[in-house]
């Protein structure tokens, strides 16, 4: 007695083996692409948890006016929505910042070339403003407001989210999601093609089943069951292969004792979501096989 409800000899077909490897390959590639998206998303989330610090630069002002302007701007910045604090950068810090520049320019060969630079040179005054995690300040509007108080002021954004790195990370996330989805979509397209070819290949058996009173749904169920098993098998193979690569990329450098060029880390949720890729793909493949079979049968 049989244990599986398959009247069509789908397992014996070369198309069946083809589908197994196609599913495995595409699921593996999809997992890799989604892993890339997860890593990028992890970076974005990590950055979003940090307070965002921007630096307001006020143009040089006469010594008598500078402190007053710094105080007014600092007070205004502290009232900004989402601002955690606003603090002028001390003269000592400014001296430290310009020291390498002055030493390189021949202003002095000793280590104290920058000492007193803030008083000796017409340098801009800097104010650090930290915004709470999760707030998205409109830096353009803020800059305009500061410029109304002190014309010529600028805002420098050193936060990764506003930088080229941030854009690159977002691009990688979008790319990972898009290519992962494309690989899953390709698996579905392959299922449609294989189902149609299988129906043609087994048309005599399908005709026989119909002659016995089989409804389209009964015949389609054969393809559905076969696709489910094949997609699970292929998906698990692809998933296992992709996981080896992901684990190697994430944990490999640490295991070899080399610090990674870019620290990457997958959260527990990412591992769960990645392990869902073969499951969801198998379910989509199953549904697609059934729909493809029913629609093809209705035309015959």
């Amino acid at each position: 007695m049989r244990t599986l409800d398959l009247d069509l000899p789908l397992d014996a077909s070369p198309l069946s083996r083809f589908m197994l490897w196609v599913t495995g390959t595409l699921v593996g590639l999809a997992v890799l692409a989604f892993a890339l998206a997860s890593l990028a998303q992890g970076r974005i989330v990590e950055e979003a948890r940090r307070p965002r610090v921007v630096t307001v630069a006020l143009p040089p002002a006469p010594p008598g006016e500078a402190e007053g302007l710094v105080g007014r701007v600092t007070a205004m910045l502290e009232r900004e929505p989402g601002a955690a604090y606003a603090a002028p950068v001390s003269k000592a810090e400014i001296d430290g910042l310009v020291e390498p520049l002055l030493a390189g320019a021949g202003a002095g060969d000793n280590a104290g070339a920058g000492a007193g630079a803030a008083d000796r040179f017409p340098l801009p005054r800097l104010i650090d403003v930290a915004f709470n995690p999760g707030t998205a300040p409109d830096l353009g509007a803020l800059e305009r407001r500061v410029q109304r108080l002190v014309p010529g002021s600028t805002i420098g954004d050193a936060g990764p989210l506003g930088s080229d790195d941030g854009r690159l990370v977002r691009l990688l996330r979008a790319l990972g999601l898009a290519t992962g989805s494309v690989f899953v979509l390709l698996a579905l397209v392959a299922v449609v093609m294989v189902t149609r070819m299988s129906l043609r290949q087994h048309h005599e058996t399908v005709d026989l089943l119909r002659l016995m009173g089989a409804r389209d749904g009964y015949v389609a169920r054969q393809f559905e069951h076969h696709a489910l098993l094949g997609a699970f098998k292929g998906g698990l193979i692809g998933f296992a292969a992709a996981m080896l690569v992901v684990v190697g990329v994430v944990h490999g450098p640490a295991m070899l004792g080399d610090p990674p060029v870019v620290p990457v880390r997958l959260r527990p949720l990412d591992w769960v979501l990645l392990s869902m890729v073969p499951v969801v793909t198998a379910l989509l493949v199953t549904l697609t096989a059934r729909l493809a079979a029913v629609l093809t049968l209705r035309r015959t």
Partner: protein
Amino acid sequence: MRYDGAAEVLHDITLTLKSGSFYFLTGPVGAGKTSLLRLLSLSHPAYRGTIRVFGRDFALVGREEAARLRQRIGVVFQDFRLLEHLSAFDNVALPLRIAGADDERVAASVPEMLRWLGLDAVMEAPPRQLSMGERQLVCIARAVVTRPALLLADEPTSNVDPERAERLMHLFVQLHGLGTSVVLSTHSQDLPRRHPFPGLRLEAGRLVAAA
């Protein structure tokens, strides 16, 4: 009736089969016996005219109802058409499963049918391990396991010796006795002579005699 735009193979046939009856469908090879059985088994649409089966015009029924009507018809094919990857048991179980029978009913009906036909020893064997006679019996078992209202048998005795032919006839007569309408096609003139059932005679696609 015509196949894919080819010339008509059956012409001007008007025929009513009575419920619970037994008919011989006779005629020379190529007369259109198989084509008429195809029409009756609802496997091929009529090019023109009307086929009414169990009181329903086949051209007007939907796919679901067509499937239900086909489930009430058993067909014995001349070439058996067994599924080679399934055992004799599963071949016979097919129509039951298609009709939605549960495993319990399948487990009860199929062995009973195979035992009745003397096939209990080969229940789990695939068709390739069966003799021609056994294959034919499996085909018959598959056709009658659902107790169809109408049984269509296409030349079931054409490839067997006279003794087996007589045994098969006995089987069909028994089924008829259980209330199944039977249409049995044969090019033999001997069988209709020995069994007193009405005959339908086809020649060159035309019904020339209906008793």
